């Protein structure tokens, strides 16, 4: 995990210039596996929470409007 201090010198040398020890990643090289992992987890969480709230919190707490 890189600390903010270690990143700061790279920043000062200009935003386009990659900082010390870091690399330029082009469109073709970039595979956002991490993003897929994060959004995929969010997807599962949404489904589970939604189902819980709908079928447990809501549907079991009568009375409901039936017509």
């Amino acid at each position, binding site marked *: 995990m*890189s600390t903010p201090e270690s990143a700061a010198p790279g*920043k000062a040398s200009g935003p386009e210039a990659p900082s010390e020890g*870091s690399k330029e990643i082009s469109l073709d090289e970039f595979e956002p596996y991490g993003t897929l992992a994060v959004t995929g987890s969010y997807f599962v969480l949404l489904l589970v929470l939604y189902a819980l709230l709908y079928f447990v919190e809501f549907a079991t707490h009568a009375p409901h409007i039936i017509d």
Partner: protein
Amino acid sequence: MTFVNHYPKAARLVKANFIVAFVALAIGGFFGLIQALHRTDVFRGFVSSVEYYDVLTGHGVLLALVFTTFFITGLYQWGVTRTMEREPENTTFSWSWFVMMVVGTVMTATAILAGLVPGSGMSAAVLYTFYPPLQGHPLFYIGLALLVVGSWMAGGDWFWSYRKWRANNPDARIPLQTYMVIFTWLMWYICSLGVALEVVVLLIPWSLGIVQKIDPLLPRTLFWFFGHAVVYFWLLPAYFVWYSILPKLSGGRLFSDPLTRVVFIFFLLLSTPIGYHHQYADPGISLVYKMWALIMTLVILLPSLMTAFTVISSMEHGARQRGGSGYFAWMGALPWGRPAFVGCALAGIMFAAGGFSGMINASLNIDMLVHNTAWIPGHFHLTVGTATALTFMAITYWLLPQLTGKELKFKGLALAQPYTWFIGMTLMSNALHRQGLAGVPRRVSEPEYAGISYDVPFGTMAEMNWQVAIGGITLFVALIFFLVVVGGTFWAGAPATNVDDTIPPPLSGPEHSPKVLDNLKLWVGVAVALVLIAYSLPLAEMVMDGLFSPGAFPAPV
């Protein structure tokens, strides 16, 4: 050399807008603190339980309408000026919309705050949704109308710059920031027409006594014609920041310019015709339109879910360029020590949670469990109250040096601010959500009734009240941090030497997308058609039986 040196006129305008926004934020935030303590019965010494509604009106109007609008006009002025590379076309015109918005705000705020002054004979405790027949002082409505018209002129100013730019660049793609501004404002013109008609045609004549009675359903429906799109009016400027600036703050580049454009088109098309989802519990709205709203509202999840991917992947790009790796570990390589980045990232995380509660609200029948309960403020303090507000505060840290030519002051405080806000909002919002599930209503000064006990699904009432109160205090502390940093920078910031204001180009640029995405006429046409499908019949029905009937007498508050 930075923005203020290249465009001194625009910089002054942006700063003026920001200052009004922050004054509104300070007052509105203090009112929020009062509410959090009053509702929970932790401290009820600031106002009476009746004056609570004056305070609540002030909180809603100053934060949701004034703070947001002024910050957005400032931010967008900055974006248009920098990407069109021109100063505002006519300084007098620019300041005239600003002054009009300020005058409107002062009028509305006077009407609200006068309610707290005994004997002033003026009040407007109608809340920021101002449903008639509750009636406020005419100044309240006239001021709001001026605020909206001023914002329309601001948009006119940017379209003016855009046309000039277009004349010099007939074949170029619209630069991304200006593109986002244009699409937000096209949406804003369409939706705010509803509230403008409501206020100018119905409420102003009625509040002045020119007409006696009012039909409550018509203005309510016109309000919600505007009222869902307004949430995207608050959100899209945060997306503007997340798409165009956050990737750079993360050390990377925007992953996809084409998909950004597609997302903004979606919002233009779908934001307005779904307002009925705020009327799921209403009589007088047919089930057909409630079903339509259900489906269209869930479809509008798509552009937000796409945004999640594009924004997170742009951050991941930054993290990997900074040496990050792994499926989740790369997040540790992000610059968690830089206030602007931290604020935007935490705002995004909270938005993911707020997105979930929004999906529940959208879902027709389960909305009956939470409609008008504390769940709702729990939800929108994550969206407008954090995704928008915290992003705005965070990006202020990055913009101030460009606008003032000064170094940010109190950097430590600036870094502590988003973390503090995040903690405060976690406490307040989770508790409000859970209270809502138990049926605790929103918009009440004393939500615990003598004869009613709440069946709390998780936790206890007392525990949730404490979380709301402590959360509210923590949020207020974070707000003070923010004001100190901004005030300190304005008055005591050291001259900045090397302002970092560049934004690297996207990984996949506009050249990868079809030109039709930039066809404004086409998308406006489709948007208007969808609005007509959704609203022409119900509105016609409400108007046909007489504009003001079935009419009820006004009830001044």
